[in-house]
């Protein structure tokens, strides 16, 4: 007992002396070791100072950037009325003032006219604590592309601070329903990821459904009920040129582009009456049947490596998500086990998460994600009627269709995959549904 005590005491004294030696004043450089193993997951405070702007259409570049960043859930803005100054270049920034105002980072910039009637957007991202410039860049474009330039600024800032590639300068496709009764129109719309800059791609008196982007972002595939019969089309976004790729007997639905862009996975029922997953080779029209069971098999989604297809099946009674090799005769494996209803799979571009619509115990339909490696299941959205999850190309957010509250009309919403924040996009007119988030634009 005593020797142990003595030993411990000696050891402690030794350690203390050693520590004292380390801490010994000026001559020996005093040091202290600290180990940090965790942190917090809070939005990063950032001040986007209004840009010095040339006369434009009134686009508030700083405002667009702020909307992008705050909407991602990873940033919180310093309101303009709390800003200590309005510098437009790094030279004018007085470091320390911004931290005092509650912001770690400051973005300053200018929009200046350049040759050919174009505009240049210059910005500089500064760390107020270190006084360093983290990122600065110039984007040049036509005056009408000013919003796009602002999204590109957002992308750079987002990546500099989160380490993840920004996906603000991307596009989405969705279906809008305008009018009612005899005037009801179905529209295929392409817009910027923030919902602005909408372009009508197709309008029809008959229902349009399930738009899907080709991996290169040049094409859209969708289901149209023209003439009361379902058919799958592919359409070139820029020109409107379109091709009907499947109008077989029964159901033609749920197209999904293979990652190489050469094939479409489809849901076809043929004459049997129960839908199965097929793969259609676009160049040859060669059709391969993937699933074969006397149940519903639909809503195919490719794994990013193109080797697997995830789909919804009610073969076990309630709809659940299964996975099988993208080749004929493979044996499907059940993937989801949480809750009694899981449908509408979508795999994140990084291959890590599976998003789906799940029905919780209260009967509410919500968007959830499951970690494909660990099986961890996480509920993301509040419900009650959330549908059609679609991953951003950076895998950091999901866009989905929602009917918040008692609202009759659907809206589009985004949520970060960690569930941090949700952002509702403004619907244009009437109901909005079936969002599809497009790929990165090169």
């Amino acid at each position, binding site marked *: 007992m005593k020797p142990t*005590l*003595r030993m*411990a*005491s000696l050891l*402690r*004294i030794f*350690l*203390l*002396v050693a*520590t*004292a030696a380390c*801490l*010994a*004043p*000026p001559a020996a*450089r*005093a*040091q*202290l*070791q*600290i*180990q*940090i*193993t*965790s*942190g*917090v*997951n*809070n939005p*990063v405070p950032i001040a986007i100072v209004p840009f010095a702007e040339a006369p434009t259409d009134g686009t508030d570049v700083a405002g667009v950037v702020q909307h992008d960043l705050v909407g991602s859930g990873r940033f919180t803005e310093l309101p303009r009325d709390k800003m200590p100054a309005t510098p437009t270049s790094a030279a004018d920034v007085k470091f320390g003032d911004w*931290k005092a105002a509650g912001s*770690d980072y400051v973005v300053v910039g200018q929009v200046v006219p350049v040759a050919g009637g174009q505009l240049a957007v210059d910005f500089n991202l500064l*760390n107020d*604590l*270190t006084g360093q410039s*983290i990122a600065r860049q110039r984007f040049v474009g036509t005056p009408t592309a000013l919003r796009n330039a602002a999204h590109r600024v957002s992308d750079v800032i987002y*990546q*500099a*601070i*989160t*380490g*993840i590639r920004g996906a603000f300068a991307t596009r989405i496709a969705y279906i809008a329903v305008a009018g009612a009764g005899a005037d009801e129109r179905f529209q295929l719309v392409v817009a910027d990821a923030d919902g602005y800059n909408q372009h009508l791609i197709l309008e029809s008196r008959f229902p349009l459904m399930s738009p899907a982007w080709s991996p290169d972002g040049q094409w859209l595939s969708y289901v149209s009920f023209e003439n009361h019969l379902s058919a799958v089309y592919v359409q070139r976004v820029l020109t409107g040129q379109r091709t009907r790729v499947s109008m077989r007997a029964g159901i033609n639905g749920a197209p999904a582009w293979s990652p190489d862009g050469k094939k479409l996975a489809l849901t076809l029922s043929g004459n049997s009456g129960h839908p199965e997953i097929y793969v259609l080779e676009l160049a040859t029209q060669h059709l391969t049947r993937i699933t074969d069971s006397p149940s519903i098999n639909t809503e195919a989604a490719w794994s990013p490596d193109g080797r697997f297809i995830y789909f919804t099946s009610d073969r076990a009674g309630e709809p659940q998500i299964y996975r099988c090799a993208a080749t004929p005769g493979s044996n499907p494996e059940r993937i989801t086990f949480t809750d009694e209803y899981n449908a509408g799979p979508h795999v994140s571009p990084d291959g890590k998460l599976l998003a789906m619509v799940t029905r919780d115990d209260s009967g509410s339909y919500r968007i959830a994600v499951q970690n494909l490696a660990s099986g961890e299941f996480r509920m993301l959205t509040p419900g009650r009627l959330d549908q059609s999850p679609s991953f951003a190309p950076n895998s*950091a957010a999901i866009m989905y269709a929602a009917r918040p509250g008692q609202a009759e009309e659907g809206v589009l919403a985004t949520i970060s995959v*960690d569930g941090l924040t949700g952002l509702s996009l403004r619907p244009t007119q009437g109901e909005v549904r079936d969002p599809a988030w497009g790929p990165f634009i090169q």
Partner: protein
Amino acid sequence: MSVVLHGSLIALLALGWWHFRQTAAPPSVPINATVVDAHTLKGVGTASTPSPQQKAPPQAQPLPAPVEGPPPPTPDEVAMREQAAKEEAEHQEQAEKAEEARQAQRKAAEAAAAEQAAEAQKAEEAQAAEQARKLAAAKKAAAKLAAKKKLEAERKLAEEKKLAAQQAAAERAARVADLQQSLQEDERATEASGALSSWQSEITSRIQNAWNRPPTAQPGIKCVLNVGLVQGGSVTSVSIGDCNGDDAVRQSIQTAVYNASPLPPPPDGIPFPHQLIITFQPTH
């Protein structure tokens, strides 16, 4: 400060112990010395001191050889004889005189010799006496020395015993004091290390709360920061050392450290570190 004091105390104790060892060793030496001296003395008595019995007797002078008597004289010879006798008488007289002289000389020589011998004997005796006296004196001195030494040894032994007892007592006391001190040191060390670790954890939690972790700061990321501080805890510089994180991770940890500034002051007795090595290594 107290730590240094403790350290030096320990050192002093160790030194004292060592010193004690060195001064405690000698006592056995005088005992050995006494024994060695006695031996030496004994050796001197048997081998070196000259003994009177052994002294050789003085050499005697050689005596003269005896002379034979003369034959009877004839008539012719009477004169002759007379002459001869006369001559003889003269001769004899001369001889006698010579003899006498010789005898006197001899006697003188003998006397001288005797005197010399007596003197020699006397001297010898005196020498022997002197030797004996010296021996006796030496023996007496030796005995006295031995007695003295014995006494001395006894005294020393007693002294040593006393000293040993004192030392033992002192040692015991020191041990008790040491134990008490070590207990106190234990307490103080516990106190100090407790204060140090609570301060460290205070800094740690402050920085962790300030670290807005980007999604790319995943387990496997390890970044070392070298942070310069000034009195008062304000961060004056942050430089990134080994780091396998991306730019966002680097940015976030730098920002975290500046946001945690000023860091809390150290507890009493611990000097403010002018350099902080922070390792960011997310575990989950």
